[in-house]
């Protein structure tokens, strides 16, 4: 039963090799989606290219649905899969800062590295900025520690907060995504900018 690396006696080097291979798949998928183009990514927020929301939600839902089916078939123990923990202020403040960074830089770290790998110089500067940002965080950590560690709620799951079963929540999320996809395609027609989309 998965997760495979939680089996007793699993060698650490194999764990890291798996990480590398998953990374290759990750980078490949991101680049194939066209995410190594900052103008395509930024297009989400100006309407002319909504690939971001389509890829994002499709990926999240495929993984969500797949993992639940695997759990049902007894192939994956979902209790052993990491659920990220909720720190109320840090999540929100961090998210806001990230949004600003996204619209300025036009990348997120994953897409930035993937763009760097195909030769985008602006991605190179983005990644350098990213390393600087990580360094700044490490150096200013003592100052913002209370913000970063405050309001800890633990690994809360959204379906528990809403009182729904995971399957029911997944269905609702799929329904919401279907609506969003439809709206996204409408937006692309309305805010179309062929001068940009033909070149990215």
């Amino acid at each position, binding site marked *: 039963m998965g997760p495979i690396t939680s089996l007793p006696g699993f060698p650490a080097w194999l764990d890291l090799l798996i990480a590398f291979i998953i990374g290759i798949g990750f980078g490949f998928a991101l680049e194939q989606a066209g995410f190594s183009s900052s103008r395509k990514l930024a297009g989400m927020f100006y309407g002319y290219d909504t690939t971001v929301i389509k890829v994002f939600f499709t990926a999240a839902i495929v993984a969500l649905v797949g993992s639940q089916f695997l759990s049902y078939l007894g192939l994956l123990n979902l209790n052993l899969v990491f659920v990220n923990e909720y720190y109320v202020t840090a999540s929100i403040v961090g998210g806001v800062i990230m949004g600003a960074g996204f619209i300025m830089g036009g990348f997120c770290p994953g897409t930035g590295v993937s763009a760097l790998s195909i030769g985008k110089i602006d991605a190179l500067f983005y990644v350098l900025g990213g390393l600087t940002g990580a360094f700044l965080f490490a150096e200013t950590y003592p100052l913002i520690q209370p913000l970063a560690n405050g309001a800890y709620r633990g690994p809360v799951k959204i379906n528990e907060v809403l009182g729904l079963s995971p399957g029911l929540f*997944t269905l609702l999320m799929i329904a919401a995504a279907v609506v969003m996809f439809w709206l996204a395609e409408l937006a692309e027609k309305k805010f179309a900018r062929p001068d940009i989309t033909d070149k990215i």
Partner: protein
Amino acid sequence: MNTRQNLSAILVLLGIILAFLPLSGKYSLREKPDKLLSEVLDEKTCFTADQVARFVVTEDSTVQLIDLRSAEEFKRFSIPGAINIPYNELMALDLESYLNRDVRSIFYSNGDYQSGYALIIARGLGYKNCFVMKGGLNEWYNLVMNSRFSGETITARENALFETRTKARRMFTELNSMPDSLKARYRESKEIERKKLDGGCE
């Protein structure tokens, strides 16, 4: 039909199936097996019969004794203050109301086996505030019920131990020699107390 519509249809179908599947991760272990095993074998998860005797004598409310034997055996005699969850029914119950509290739960059975298994299950499901009484009732009998003082001098510590054992023995004998009706009422009153603790922050 374009890709979006195809994909949406497939996802909605899968979502409907998921919404109605009886998925529940409640009964799978929340801990990796080797970590769980070392946790359970650790000294820190055992209480000796002497420690339990002290909890009984001081009527310590931070501790809940759980008797894993059958209802029959429980009626005949049990440690004062213990509640009965027969081992066979452990998995059928909603353990949440018994175990997920600030109170420490101490399992005991006749020996070590059933209490050990119950501990693995309880801790594996995520209830970390669970322990066992080492040696079970057999050890309780040896240490508490049959304790005799022999020798000429006694240290303060031995004295305290002896006193606790004697008091516990008295409480045990008193409770278990009550007629059945009184025993039942005593147990019910303990049940009501327990439920009050639960109802608080619902």
